[in-house]
């Protein structure tokens, strides 16, 4: 109060000068966040938004068998992307694989996250171990399954030397191995998200619940699980979106019939050199996944997701 009064008195004695100073301070404070954001905004605009705009434009062009693509506004690519039953099948299959992957990530990730939250001393080491796989290339991690599951891989060799089987079993290159590879890749994202939300839950809550007569399990299902659902949902969204957008895992661990939607984009652009069609397909996937993110944001809010990433 005294301080306020002093400022008032000062303003009255020299109004113009003080106001000028106040204005410039205010203007500087208003400018400061934009100055700090500018490099990132510039990078995002130049490297993400502008190329995306190119892709949007490309998707309305037409591919010519010879010579340059035909520029213009043609809906042919979009029509094919939306009506071709093959594309629709692959899209649904992609969403199915992403959903199954997300389910297994949640199933395996929740107990791990719970364990890390409740471990007292070595929490940091456990979190570090969780991040460790990120230091190795995703492709190498995916390829490692070939050494384990391949016909002369660790598992087949072990089974054969134990006499369980006489010739190698074909374990690789099917939908199951694609899901396995995706779970391997995405599990840390799930664990981290659940961990963040579990870590924010007061452990006294479970103690309070058990003191009121709930068993440990009831206390978990009644209190801890519902309170951690936002983290589970955030992890689920990340796993689903990353899983549905992948093309390396099905390329390395899938068979010819296990292509996912991103493989179609890869195929169209790299193999067939059909950039307009590839653009339409990639935008279709972007729209489907974007709609999912929008739904999530509508019901759970984006803040939970950023919490998990931080």
């Amino acid at each position, binding site marked *: 109060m005294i301080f306020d009064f002093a400022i008032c008195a000062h303003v009255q004695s020299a109004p113009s000068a003080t106001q000028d100073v106040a204005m410039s301070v205010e203007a500087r404070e208003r400018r400061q966040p934009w100055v700090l954001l500018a490099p990132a905004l510039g990078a995002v605009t130049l490297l993400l938004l502008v190329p995306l705009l190119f892709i949007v434009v490309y998707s309305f062009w037409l591919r010519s068998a010879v010579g340059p693509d035909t520029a213009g506004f043609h809906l042919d690519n979009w029509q094919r992307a939306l009506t071709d039953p093959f594309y629709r099948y692959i899209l649904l299959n992609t969403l199915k694989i992403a959903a199954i992957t997300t389910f297994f990530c949640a199933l395996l990730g929740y107990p791990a996250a719970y364990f890390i939250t409740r471990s007292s001393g070595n929490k940091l080491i456990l979190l570090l171990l969780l991040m460790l796989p990120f230091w190795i290339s995703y492709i190498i991690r995916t390829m490692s399954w070939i050494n384990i599951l391949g016909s002369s891989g660790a598992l087949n060799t072990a089974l054969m030397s134990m006499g369980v089987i006489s010739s190698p079993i074909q374990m690789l290159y099917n939908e199951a191995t694609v899901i396995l590879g995706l779970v391997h890749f995405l599990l840390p994202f799930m664990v981290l998200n659940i961990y963040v939300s579990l870590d924010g839950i007061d452990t006294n809550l479970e103690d*309070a619940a058990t*003191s*009121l007569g*709930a068993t440990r399990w009831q206390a978990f299902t009644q209190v801890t699980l519902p*309170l951690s659902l936002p983290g589970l949902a955030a992890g689920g969204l990340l796993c689903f979106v990353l899983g549905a957008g992948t093309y390396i895992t099905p390329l390395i661990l899938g068979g010819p019939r296990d292509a996912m939607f991103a493989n179609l984009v890869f195929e169209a652009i790299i193999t067939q050199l059909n950039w307009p069609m590839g653009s339409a397909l990639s935008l279709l996937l972007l729209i489907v996944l974007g709609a999912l993110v929008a739904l999530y944001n509508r019901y759970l809010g984006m803040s939970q997701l950023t919490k998990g990433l931080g």
Partner: protein
Amino acid sequence: MGAVTLNNIVKRFGTFTAVEQTSMQIPEGSFTTLLGPSGCGKTTTLRMIAGLLDPSEGEIIINGKRVNDVPIHKRNLGLVFQNYALFPHKTVADNVGFGLRYRNVPRADIARRVQDALELVQLPQVANRYPKALSGGQQQRIALARAIVIEPDVLLLDEPLSALDANLREDMRVELKNIQSRIGVTTVFVTHDQSEALAMSDQIVVMSDGKVEQVGAPEEVYNTPASEFVARFLGASNILGGRCLSRGPDGAVLEVPVFGKVIVPSAKAPHLAGEGAAKLVIRAEKLLLRDAPPESGAFSAPATVETVDYQGQSVRYFVRAGDTQLQAINMIDERPFAVGAQVHLTLRPQDCAALPG
């Protein structure tokens, strides 16, 4: 309702012993406070009674029954935490009714008992709100309602008032004590705040370094501390190290700095065995500053006022008598003594307590 007995309880965490060989009796229906500085083992003791921690040794008896192996959800105890620990995703009514759902109480009875409990804590109108929408004091009342609605054998309160601001804390202190005496539940209250302990308790257990220092009624613990720790922890005390010259039926004769020979009544020296090193405990508010030496019957010594800490109705003085600095808290009518004033310290025999050195 039940009494709680701890027999030679020990709790070790690895090599660290949090509670050493502790025994105590908590009478049925009493309000017993575990008082001590942080890290003294009071919360560990409470958590062992609750069943949140298992004692390393010893036994815990509630209602005459050994409960060491009874899991927490079967002990029928009400637990209130410092941070309230209300379930944020449940309404107040669902929070309060939580324990009743595990006790086969019919749905209609749950609603009625929840409402009764909310009325007991004077918040009948908030049943459908979420904890977030309540103030700290209101949340703590709901936490209390949730703990007592299950009619627990023992109510365990872990520093329930320390998260509240000062004024609210004093109001809640009175109200908590009222509710406790109304329902008559055996209550164990953990705090580091001596004034809470003195104001609310039937029995205070003073703890330090995992050991019980003294058990007694508030007046007993305050007036006749059993150890130097208790004397220092409760209130402001002056402790003068000296010798006990003799111990007779009329009292103990101590020779101490400042006052010379002092006779402490027997009742005030229960722990003093006989001759040897001894300490004289003088409460700061019993040490009076006077202009003139007192009439006979009181001990006296000249001193100089060094610091004056004026607090309106009372003053806290630091005075120097020879090499010794003493603290005195005196009620005053008018002006306090000035710094540098020559005064006579006055002390009545019944206001001293003696401890073995």
